[in-house]
């Protein structure tokens, strides 16, 4: 079964795998091509076709031109919103998760198993169970319809994942290392800073990629807790589709979709190995 050489069987394998790969790439190719075709050209033909004139202008309009409701600033403000939510929430949740994971795995304290068990339940609890309480909490502390509110939500909820990732990684570090450092008089933070953090490179990359991708792509909280100019880009894409439903601008919409997907796609291309590791680490909980 694992012989090399060019038997007909192997040609079939290559054929099958190339066909499926083409099907998997097709949606991306179609959208990229459409982002370079004018709205009129798409309207006359179909969504699937080669650009007759390269309509680079679609990207200009998508980035800073098209209108949703009465504001005509393109997708730029929503991209900025997403960045202003995703970057701080990723940093906070990763850092706090690393410290929590370190405390739970290597420091040990009374009740650690209990609280860790409850925190990891957050991996499973549906978002729908938290929508109403978050609405009330955000309203009470005056953070409804703010980016800060979304940062808070994603930081607290992200802790379930980040603590799990880091804890499972730190568990493999020998306790003797910590014990020796404690005998030398090193405290909680010094050990974290001097011993744990330098060992944490891979897991921090996995965690950051996972958190960034999840928060950037999140939609339900964005659409529930923010409106209008405060929305992240996922919610803005839906608003754009609704706004142009009567006179579709498929060229511009395609460009907007590409722009919105670009940050996570780039991260995937650059850190694919770590992306997959996060995926499978999250799976084998």
């Amino acid at each position, binding site marked *: 079964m694992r012989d090399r050489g060019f038997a007909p069987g192997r040609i079939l394998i290559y054929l099958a795998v190339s066909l499926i790969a083409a099907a998997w790439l097709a949606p991306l190719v179609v959208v990229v091509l459409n982002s370079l075709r004018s709205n009129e050209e798409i309207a006359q033909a179909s969504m*699937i076709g080669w650009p007759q004139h390269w309509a680079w202008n679609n990207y200009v309009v998508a980035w800073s031109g098209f209108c949703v409701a009465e504001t005509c600033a393109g997708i730029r403000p929503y991209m900025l919103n997403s960045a202003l939510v995703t970057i701080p929430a990723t940093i906070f949740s990763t850092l706090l998760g690393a410290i929590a994971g370190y405390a739970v795995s290597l420091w040990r304290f009374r009740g650690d198993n209990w609280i860790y068990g409850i925190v990891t339940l957050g991996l499973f609890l549906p978002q729908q169970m938290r*929508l109403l*309480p978050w609405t009330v909490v955000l309203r009470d502390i005056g953070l409804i319809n703010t980016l800060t509110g979304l940062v808070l939500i994603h930081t607290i909820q992200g802790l379930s994942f980040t603590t799990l990732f880091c804890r499972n990684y730190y568990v493999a570090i020998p306790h003797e290392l910590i014990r020796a450092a404690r005998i030398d008089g090193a405290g909680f933070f010094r050990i974290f800073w001097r011993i744990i953090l330098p060992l944490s490179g891979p897991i921090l990359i996995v965690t950051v990629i996972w958190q960034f991708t999840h928060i950037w792509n999140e939609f339900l909280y964005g659409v529930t807790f923010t409106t209008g100019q405060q929305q992240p880009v996922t919610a803005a*894409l*839906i608003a754009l589709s609704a706004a142009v439903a009567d006179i579709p601008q498929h060229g511009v919409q395609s460009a907007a979709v590409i722009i919105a997907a670009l940050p996570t796609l780039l991260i995937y291309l650059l850190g694919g190995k770590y992306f997959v590791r996060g995926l499978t680490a999250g799976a084998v909980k």
Partner: protein
Amino acid sequence: MTNAVSIRPGRPVATELVRRLPEYLMIWVPLLLSAAHLVSFSLWTIWISFTPSTLIPVSGWVGLRNYSAVAASRNWQIAFDNLLLFGSAFVVLSAATGLVLAILLDQRIRGENVLRSIFLYPLAVSFVVTGTVWSWLLNPGLGIQKLVHDLGWTTFKFDWLIDRDMAIWTIVIAAIWQSSGFAMALFLAGLRSVDADIIKAAQIDGAGPVRIYRRIILPSLWPITITVVVIQLQFAISTFDLVRALTNGGPGIATQLPALVVYDLMFQRSLLGRGAAAAVLMLLILLAVLLPYAAWRYVQQRRAAHA
């Protein structure tokens, strides 16, 4: 001034406490916030589901009335039927696709890394993007059907997106495209961990590749298959963005799913009590999947520990 008490010499316990206060805060505050929000938010939503709350949360007790109202609504019934169909079709087909991809990639083919990246990239984009793109491709007036018509085959029909009976399958298609790569990644890891000595022994005994797959390799993938199924089911139960972008529950309410019903009740009809009841029902559906899985995992681990 009483705040200096704790750092006065001769009180070692208090001094120690103050000295270590920063680390206690860093450990406990995030963990407690996380745990407290999970517990209290769940309990609060459950409590609301038993109250007559509509526009705003109010106290009071209506027993199971919200639940019976939700369960009796056409919206929920369609959503539940859709979930059963979508959940089973999507889980079976994406696991099958993932397994086929994994087996193909496991044949020592050239360009494996590139191919793997191609099958996994949809996982990096949001469901909103996936749903939007597939809504174009599957739109009969714009996408695949239009293309085939323009090419000359004018009787070709592929209009599931606007067909009440078939629309749910468009969500299955988009979901398979998005997450089969995930199943592939797990299966591939499983295939690579099969003991090479056993395979070699079987080859020496004259077993062909088909037989080796059927008798040795595939049976060893059972635990991974169960994990894949459970995770994909968890995704299916909470599907929201994908449907919102692809069909928005339509045509009519033909592609309604529980998560959309919850959102509709809570934020569009302002029936908080019923919305909370629908959310709790979602949680119960999820538990019906996760609890047996947790029990199975527990038994497996016990068995591994004794072996």
